[in-house]
């Protein structure tokens, strides 16, 4: 049984009469010990998918229309509130993009780690355990650092504290939503190395959200690409990066300038991401797609599983086509 299994998750905003569908039939699963990356442009529904895992999207305004989220076999969407509270920051914990906004500015960081311990592992709520966690995420002299306030730490160190708090409950699944987006490349590299190391040592599952394909390449076992509320491609990381199949995945990879390669012009994807409530008919990517056929404008492609195991939402992206 996979640790997490999301089936046909469908989420809408707005009144039923004029509802805007933000997630449309999202299905994915994560095995224990696996690192899954969710990539896609802004507004594609990555965060909503991730937050749903602990039912953290406020309802209303959001409404779950269909689907289930099974964590160790139990459906999160139907859990009573008390159990949801235990789950959050317990079995699954979260790390967000902006550590400055998530830490309490008037409380020493060690105390903040301690609070998570008191809630989820009261027996381990000791100063020694706080220091062990801070050391685990690579904070030097944890004894002294525990009494620092967030503003006394740099962005990279704040993000380490956030990760220490997320680890305090011994989660089985760590959800990291753009954990390095606000950081420099050199600090980003440190955090990525930390996540890779923790994954090895603790055997946790990780769901990592990023719009940086390079970050996904460094950490993912599998990659899921989302566009306008749908999964458009899902495959093992190496297969997806070395041989992207969906036209959107290809366009995304081609538009990212690579350091070692110099080209005259970058291949931009024409147009922009459609707004919520204004998704095009047929294939949602068709107005920007370079190989779109006339029928793409009217026929809704389904996510098909190929013989090699990957899933692709495009009838024209056949295996073996010339790249």
């Amino acid at each position, binding site marked *: 049984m996979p640790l997490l299994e999301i089936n046909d998750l469908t989420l809408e905003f707005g009144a039923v009469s004029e509802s805007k569908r933000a997630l449309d039939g999202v299905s994915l699963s994560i095995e224990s010990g696996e690192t899954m990356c969710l990539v896609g*442009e802004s507004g594609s529904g990555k965060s909503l998918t991730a937050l749903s895992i602990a039912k953290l999207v406020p309802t209303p305004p959001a409404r779950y229309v269909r689907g289930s989220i099974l964590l160790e076999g139990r459906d999160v969407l139907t859990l009573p509130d008390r159990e949801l509270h235990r789950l959050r920051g317990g079995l699954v914990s979260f790390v967000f993009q902006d550590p400055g906004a998530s830490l309490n500015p008037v409380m020493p960081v060690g105390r903040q780690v301690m609070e998570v311990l008191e809630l989820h592992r009261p027996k381990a709520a000791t100063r020694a355990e706080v220091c062990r966690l801070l050391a685990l995420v690579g904070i030097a002299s944890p004894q002294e650092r525990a009494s620092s306030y967030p503003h006394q730490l740099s962005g990279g160190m704040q993000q380490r504290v956030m990760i220490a708090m997320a680890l305090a409950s011994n989660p089985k699944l760590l959800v990291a939503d753009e954990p390095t987006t606000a950081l420099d490349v*050199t600090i*980003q590299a*440190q955090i*990525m190395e930390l996540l890779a190391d923790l994954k090895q040592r603790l055997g946790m599952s990780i769901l990592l959200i990023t719009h940086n394909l390079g970050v996904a390449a460094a950490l993912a076992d599998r990659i899921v690409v989302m566009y306008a509320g749908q999964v458009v491609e899902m495959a093992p990381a190496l297969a997806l*990066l070395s041989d992207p199949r969906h036209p959107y995945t290809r366009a995304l*990879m081609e538009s990212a300038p690579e350091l070692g390669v*110099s080209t005259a012009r970058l291949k931009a994807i024409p147009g922009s991401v459609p707004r919520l409530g204004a998704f095009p008919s047929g294939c949602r990517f068709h107005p920007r797609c370079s190989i779109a056929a006339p029928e793409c404008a009217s026929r809704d492609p389904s996510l098909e599983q190929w013989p090699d195991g990957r899933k692709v939402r495009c009838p024209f992206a056949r295996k073996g086509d010339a790249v």
Partner: protein
Amino acid sequence: MRPILEIENLSVRYTIGGGLLNGPANEVRAVEDVSFSIMPGETIGLVGESGCGKTSLGRAIVGLQRASSGVIRFAGETLDFGSNRQRVTSGLQMIFQNPYASLNPRMTVEQIVGEAIQIHRLAGNAADRREAVVRLLVSVGLDAQHAQRYPHEFSGGQRQRIGIARALAVKPRLLVCDEPVSALDVSVQAQIVNLLRDLQEAESLAYLFIAHDLGVVRHLSHRVLVMYLGRVVETGSSDQVCLTPRHPYTKALISAVPSLLPTHKTRVVLKGELPSPLNPPAGCPFHPRCPIAEARCRTELPLPREVGASHWVACHLAHRP
């Protein structure tokens, strides 16, 4: 041909604190003794960690921030912060990182773009001005219909186009672009980067392009400047800096860039973080994090020296392979 911009020994310092409540005043050394020049039609990429002084340098160049010492010469004329400031800086424009915050939400696109034309009296009457605005919008890939709309009606990429149109309105010869694509999705990033390239070819514009994405910088720049703690530590052609970096900091920076396909390169992960510009370390500013630092690095400031044709590195050990 002479450079469009010459910078000599430029320093920017901020005073913070002072007064009864804040204790003694402190000096932030944001930019220290920086010299370089830009030719017409050339793009210089400026990279370095957050807080190393990139924005401060850019703001000093366009006259938004007073330099503490040093000389800024634009088209041969020295910017003295006095009477000639507006005349000199009208050839210099800046576009900003955040396309959401840098446009006035209560002005239409026509007002935003037209404002600069009016201030610098570049159009005779309202009709001429309107025509100039439409021409500018078209040149950045928008159209006449967009003129009457407000910023919130546009996507991030479109707003950045509006920012560029506004900057182009006064016919600048140098654009300082401060992380113009960092807040945009990769797909839209590529559109803006291509636009900047096209504009450069059409108008022979020069760019100082500030970014932390080395891929974008390499793609767009003729030469690259690497800053660390207020100082330039390496300069060279885009290929020299990105493919054969010689400063240990540049090496770490380049190796930290995540790549799409698995590579066999070894990643140099730096320990520790950028020290404070409030009390920069003695000797080489990079020595506390440098993997190869020696005794001399802790006491003696390395001066830039040429390690290849127009490839300068400020490191005592730069001659080592």
